[in-house]
């Protein structure tokens, strides 16, 4: 095969795998920002915190990082409930989400990031499972398990989340809460309780994404910064509250970023994230698949 074409094909395939990781990172945000209208800019920082706990627990117990990521999810669910409790009590209830609420999440992001620097130092941390060094080959195309396994896990979790949101009463209530909290109240459902639960789930998803992140690449306390542009661009492109839209946007984003990195060098990938975010905001704020309001 033509080497350029082979390079492009490989760029697209590993871009799709990278997109799986991005879908994991953005899934929680699609719940909190997309459905609940809570601008949780601390989401990527909490994901990185999840990655660090995965490294610490996984190294101590000798467990697989993805297994640890699933096991630690309930802990982060509780953390998420705590954060939402504070947010609701001091900001949402008073109608001060816009300025004070944003500043609050910025503070949380900052405390998490600097806290990680203080606890672990600014160096990179990693935890490689055994399969991280295996690569499957399909003809000209490489499928490194380091990318494939987290992507499959991430897409499975997002798939289960989609099913749960569509089939269960609580799931439907979560989808409804941002649209009409009063209507939920009339059905004897407490919107605050629903939001608390959903926000807890979003942080649990962030922790799982942290596990996937550790498998794909080493992490450092500042790793979250570059993800802010990515995950927000993906959620907005996907149409805010739509999880299938988010997954499509994540895969597309992974491909574009990876192909750019393949042909122009990896140092430009943050610029790709930001460029996409600006273009999306400027031209399609309703998402790639939505209609203009």
């Amino acid at each position, binding site marked *: 095969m033509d080497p350029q074409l082979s390079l492009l094909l490989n760029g697209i395939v590993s871009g799709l795998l990278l997109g799986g990781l991005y879908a994991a990172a953005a899934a929680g945000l699609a719940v909190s920002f997309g459905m609940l209208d809570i601008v949780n800019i601390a989401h990527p920082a909490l994901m990185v915190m999840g990655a660090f706990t995965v490294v610490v627990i996984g190294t101590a117990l000798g467990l697989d990082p993805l297994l640890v990521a699933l096991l630690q999810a309930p802990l982060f669910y509780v953390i998420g409930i705590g954060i939402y409790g504070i947010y609701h009590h001091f900001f949402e209830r008073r109608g001060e989400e816009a300025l004070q609420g944003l500043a609050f999440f910025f503070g949380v992001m900052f405390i998490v990031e600097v806290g990680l620097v203080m606890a672990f130092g600014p160096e990179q941390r990693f935890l490689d499972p055994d399969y991280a060094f295996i690569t499957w080959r399909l003809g000209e195309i490489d499928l490194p398990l380091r990318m494939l396994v987290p992507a499959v896990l991430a897409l499975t979790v997002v798939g289960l989340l989609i099913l749960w949101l569509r089939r269960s009463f609580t799931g439907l209530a979560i989808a409804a809460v941002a649209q009409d909290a009063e209507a939920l109240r009339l059905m004897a459902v407490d919107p605050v309780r629903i939001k608390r639960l959903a926000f807890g789930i979003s942080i649990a998803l962030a922790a799982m994404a942290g596990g996937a992140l550790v498998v794909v690449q080493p992490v450092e306390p500042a790793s979250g910064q570059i993800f802010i542009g990515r995950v927000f661009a993906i959620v907005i492109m996907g149409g805010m509250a739509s999880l299938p839209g988010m997954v499509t946007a994540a895969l597309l984003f992974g491909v574009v970023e990876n192909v750019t990195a393949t042909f122009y060098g990896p140092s430009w990938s943050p610029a790709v*994230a930001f460029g996409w975010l600006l273009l999306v905001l400027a031209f399609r704020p309703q998402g790639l698949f939505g209609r203009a309001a």
Partner: protein
Amino acid sequence: MSATLLGTGTIPAPPRHAVFWLGAIGLGVALVVALRMIGNDYGYFAGYFVLQYVVLASAWNILGGYAGYVNFGAAGFMAAGAYAAIALRKATGLDLMPGILAGAVVAGLLGLGTGYLTLRLRGVFFSIATLCLAVVLQTLVVNWDYVGGSRGAYIVNPMEIPPFVSWGEYMFVVMLVLAIGTVGVARALEHSRIGAGLAAIRDNERAAEAVGVPTLRLKLSATTLCGALMGLAGAPLPYYSGYLNPDAAFSLSYAVNAIAMPLIGGAGTWAGPVIGAVLLGTLQQAATVTISSALNLWIVGWMLVVFVALFPRGIMGWFRRRR
């Protein structure tokens, strides 16, 4: 955002500009004389440190406090100013004063561009964009060898610069003038028609638009001014330290302090950011001697969270309540 939260809630006192300017200049002269009598170069160093935050916090307040739009990219705008000054010096040999002008222009245009692309939407989108802006600018600077890339850039300063006793004093006076100017502009803006328009945007943007406030134009002006003033704060940075690398220019402490200082001091009033900057700046300058810089920043982060939760009107709010 309710009017009682950030605004005065009462009719503001008629601005006494002459009194303010005379008082500010008098205070500035007193500071210079006092530091010269102490005669220690560290005094100038610490003074510059605090004053640059007065500029940065007041700049943030023009957009964040008056109009209610949160700019997370303070470090990015500041570094844009600093690197504009470095690039100008490399290209033309022009030094500090033209560099400050260039820094303000570049950072102002950056603010205008970001604002133009995102401000027609909800405010949070602008905030998210500014959050990413710093990350991207840092990538660009690290890859830009002309201004030193990741190795950083050196600037050799002259030993003597009459009539000042030292380079440190000169830098201190420059930043003092910038700080007084910025606070004066912010104060004049607060009591002007533009300030009233921005307050209307903060309190209810739709209602403001409906009664004929040119919201987009006002927001873009505020974003440009905010960016330009942040660039102003950053442009002297390489001259002050003699060396600048991307890590220092895009330091997290600028990003968090630019938000924490106005919110802790009291956003939406010109005095709030000044109080916050003097208080937090002095505390951090004193604390770096005793504790690590990470712990230092951590404390600022906690203070930000505690203040926005418990004292949404900041320190200025305490005075208002007592009256």
